[in-house]
């Protein structure tokens, strides 16, 4: 005998829909709340003076962060993408590959402050780069490398195997196949991964704490790789932890600018991905 449902499946369906959408909303709320809170608190401090005037002006710090982020990308992207291509296209399952993957996972798990200390030891002290843009970017590159590798690997995996087969069967070498078919089609995914990694780099403080960032500089805009820089997250960090004299709204305004910068990068990446996905479909 089949017994009837206690509650009709349609009602269960409706209930679950409501419960699940509420839970999803819970995730969104803190983000929106945080943004709103920062905006309200910092609104008074948000003015042109904040960006241009005084020793804590934001513009040089933003420029410093921009340089840092670009150099990080320039270092991490080629290495990361190359590693991803090796892992996904060339490597057979073996001990070496397993070791590499293990290293990547561990690298991703290392706290960022340890990266900072490692960068201090390797780039600043051992290689004698000094506390500078290059040391900071190299340290930051180490931090984001696992992100770039896994995002790129994922993007490469998304390229259908039948496209590779089609190319190989036409007599293409593996490299020709990667260069002409795989990479062009994985590019949207790789680029979004790259931008997301970089937005992470833009917000990090610990890696540049000992390797690159200063609070104030006589020459705030760096002219070479070996110049010291100002950086937005570092500025915020020092401002909030060591400078009680700075008005609260200035701190909130700074935080707001930083968050908007990072979110802007993220949203830009998402929009770009959707655009590219629409252009290339298989």
């Amino acid at each position, binding site marked *: 005998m089949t017994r009837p449902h206690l509650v009709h499946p349609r009602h269960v369906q409706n209930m679950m829909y409501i419960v699940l959408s509420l839970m999803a909303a819970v995730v969104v709320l803190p983000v929106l709340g945080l943004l709103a809170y920062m905006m309200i608190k910092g609104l008074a401090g948000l003015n042109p003076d904040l960006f241009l005037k005084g020793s804590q002006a934001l513009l040089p710090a933003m420029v410093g962060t921009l340089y840092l982020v670009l150099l990080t990308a320039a270092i991490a992207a080629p290495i990361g993408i190359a590693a991803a291509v090796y892992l996904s296209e060339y490597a057979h399952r073996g001990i070496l590959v397993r070791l590499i993957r293990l290293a990547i996972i561990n690298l991703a798990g290392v706290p960022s402050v340890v990266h900072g200390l490692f960068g201090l030891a390797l780039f600043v002290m051992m290689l004698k780069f000094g506390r500078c843009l290059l040391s900071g970017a190299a340290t930051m590159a180490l931090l984001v490398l696992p992100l770039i590798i896994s995002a790129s690997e994922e993007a490469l995996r998304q390229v259908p195997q039948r496209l590779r087969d089609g*190319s190989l*069967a036409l*007599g293409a070498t593996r490299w020709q196949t990667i260069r002409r078919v795989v990479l062009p089609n994985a590019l949207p995914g790789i680029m979004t991964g790259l931008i997301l990694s970089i937005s992470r780099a833009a917000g990090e403080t610990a890696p540049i704490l000992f390797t690159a960032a200063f609070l104030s500089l006589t020459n705030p805009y760096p002219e070479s790789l070996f110049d010291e820089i100002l950086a937005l997250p570092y500025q915020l960090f020092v401002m909030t932890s060591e400078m009680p004299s700075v008005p609260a709204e200035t701190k909130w305004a700074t935080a707001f600018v930083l968050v908007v910068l990072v979110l802007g990068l993220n949203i830009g990446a998402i929009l770009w991905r959707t655009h590219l996905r629409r252009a290339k479909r298989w």
Partner: protein
Amino acid sequence: MSALPSAVGRTLTQTGEDGSQSAGQSVAEEAFLPTCEEVPCAPNILRPEGEIKLEARSLNMYYGSFQALRNVSMAIPERRITALIGPSGCGKSSFLRCFNRMNDMIDGFRLEGDVLLEGNDIYRRDLDLAYLRKRVGMVFQAPNPFPMSIYDNIAYGPRLHGRPDRSELDQIVEQSLRQAALWDEVKDKLRQSALGLSGGQQQRLCIARVLAVQPEVLLMDEPASALDPTATFHIEELMLQLMEHYTIVIVTHNMYQASRVSQYTGFFLMGELVEFGHTEQIFETPRDKRTDDYIRGRFG
């Protein structure tokens, strides 16, 4: 055909990218291959008359510990259509992929025996894999045009193998599309994405893409299984036209297709070539009971 310098009875383990092989070779270089008379042939395996384009001799293939092919010997005649039929997992696709070495990349792949293209061993050490695949083209089950323009799809192969100039390329593109009976349908939209074509058109594009590198052999792995009946008949008609210039080997689940297009048919079962003969003979008067059961649909 008889005196061919090559390696006999060697074992091929992991094969690298450009034909470099790593281990497991018991090579007797410059030894002579046994002639066909010396190779013991099963009674139901026909040796076709005329020129032989491709040949497999005593082929055993393994994926790790799984044996995909068991002592398969088959001679494939030039400028004919040879169909390979059999249930899923019988080894027919694996066998097909031996002829352009598309199995090499699979982990654990191992091959014993010889595969010959016009009498030359294609698993030899110094073989130029790109050149082999240029001569032996392949069309896959699902149409797989590259996400680029129709023109660039066709030009892909020629650009791999050299640097053809613009007018040369234009000519190759037109000729290949004409040969694949697609020119009239796409001549006004060569710059548009190949992904906008219908399934049947995409498959003909893939055939044209292979023809553009001027192969001698076309391997077709269930080329019409993803297509509707009309598109299927297009492909079949095209195959019959192409037969004039190309040696075609087709793997198909559809034995009616095999009976329509091919002159020779081989039936595979659990890695074994059970029967190989003229297509009419296979479908009307198969010699082996297993072949009869399979083609009558009375299997298992």
